[in-house]
């Protein structure tokens, strides 16, 4: 595959086909855990790890698995990796594991993962599938982190609280309290804050796409129709 191909895979995964902002997949964990930057980042990285492992395996076996049983096989593979990732997190990131709780096993049900297995990894070579997994995974992680950061900042006026859960004890000092007297905005931490935050991020992405679209820059088909075409 040419360089252009890889570039397209990466740009699509991070931006044009961002699973959270465009495909709107995996929203349940996305909404549920993004009440702080560290929680969002933690689940994003766990999802990326599963995505990478599943894309690699699915791509490796793509010629051997009969089409009739491919979906059950993919589900088996994904479930096995999720369980392995869950065990690893339980062992080495014990407190973060306790906080993310049910949302780690629920990575199995994240449609992004089976979606990429079916739509990409089962039809493309191993290296391209790995690239796709990383691009999609980091695109998803970026949205989780950004949403977590903004909800944490608006909700309780801090950033990186609980960083030691992910980066070890030395990171305890990373927490930034923007304003110690900040009363906090409860709404941002509660579930409605997740919907509003995600809606804002999607709107921002569409605005940016439209801005560059009007400047005539070549973009992939935008998810929203241009007003003059509509």
């Amino acid at each position, binding site marked *: 595959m040419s360089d252009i191909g890889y570039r397209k895979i990466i740009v699509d995964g991070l931006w044009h086909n961002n699973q959270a902002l465009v495909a709107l997949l995996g929203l349940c964990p996305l909404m549920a855990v993004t009440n702080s930057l560290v929680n969002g980042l933690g689940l994003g990285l766990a999802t990326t790890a599963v995505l990478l492992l599943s894309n690699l395996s699915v791509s490796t076996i793509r010629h051997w698995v009969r089409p009739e049983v491919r979906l059950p096989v993919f589900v088996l593979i994904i479930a096995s990796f999720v369980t392995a990732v869950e065990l690893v997190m*339980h062992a080495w990131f*014990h407190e973060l594991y306790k906080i993310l709780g049910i949302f780690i096993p629920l990575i199995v049900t994240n449609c992004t993962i089976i979606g990429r297995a079916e739509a990409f990894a089962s039809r493309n070579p191993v290296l391209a599938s790995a690239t796709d997994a990383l691009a999609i995974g980091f695109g998803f992680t970026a949205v989780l982190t950004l949403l977590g950061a903004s909800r944490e900042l608006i909700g309780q006026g801090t950033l990186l609280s609980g960083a030691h859960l992910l980066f070890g004890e030395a990171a305890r000092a990373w927490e930034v309290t923007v304003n110690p007297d900040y009363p906090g905005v409860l709404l941002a*931490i509660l579930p409605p804050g997740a919907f509003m935050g995600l809606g804002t991020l999607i709107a921002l992405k569409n605005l940016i796409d439209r801005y560059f679209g009007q400047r005539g820059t070549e973009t992939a088909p935008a998810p929203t129709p241009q007003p003059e075409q509509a």
Partner: protein
Amino acid sequence: MNERAPSPWRTALTAAAVLGFFAVLGSALVGVAYQGTAERIAQSEREALLRQLNAILARHEYDNDLLNDYLDVSAPKRLGAETTRVYRARRQGKPVALILSPVVAQGYSGAIDLIVGIRVDGTLAGVRVLSHKETPGLGDRIDERKSPWILGFSGKSLDEPPLSRWRVKRDGGDFDQFTGATITPRAVVAAVKEALLWYRAQGPKLFEVPPQVEKTRHE
């Protein structure tokens, strides 16, 4: 039709074989992951538990192996849980404190699991919340990460304040409630009081019972 098309039986069996193969492979992967992490998970659990216990009773106050000196008691009326594990802290063989986990309070939106440390003289070594489902921003101030309220229990006993004042202020007691949330602190205060009453009736003699041995321990 292509005369070389495989028979439906053959197709189905191959498909089943492929699926079975991956089921075995997946199980093997999970098995290996489990083997590789089991020890580390057990250690993390122990460390996390010890951190909880040491938050109640500082490490230098006892010298026994706290994690292996415990009893499981059942006093649902007083302690709220079907079984509560009682860790017994000693120093040079002398009783220091009991740490009860969990003591369950019925909060505004479900059970609040507490860990309660009671010194041998009946004063509280400390109380912490293990888990709760209280409203963020209102009832969740029982969590020490949100507010220092729960730390105020340390040093209290059934004599200080007197038993009749073991209530939140709105009910004529000594303990602060939160703005917009009375039910949660009321439940916690009541649960801690019940735990102290349980200790007064049962506690001191529990130090004499031989330690419980985990029935399902390996080896």
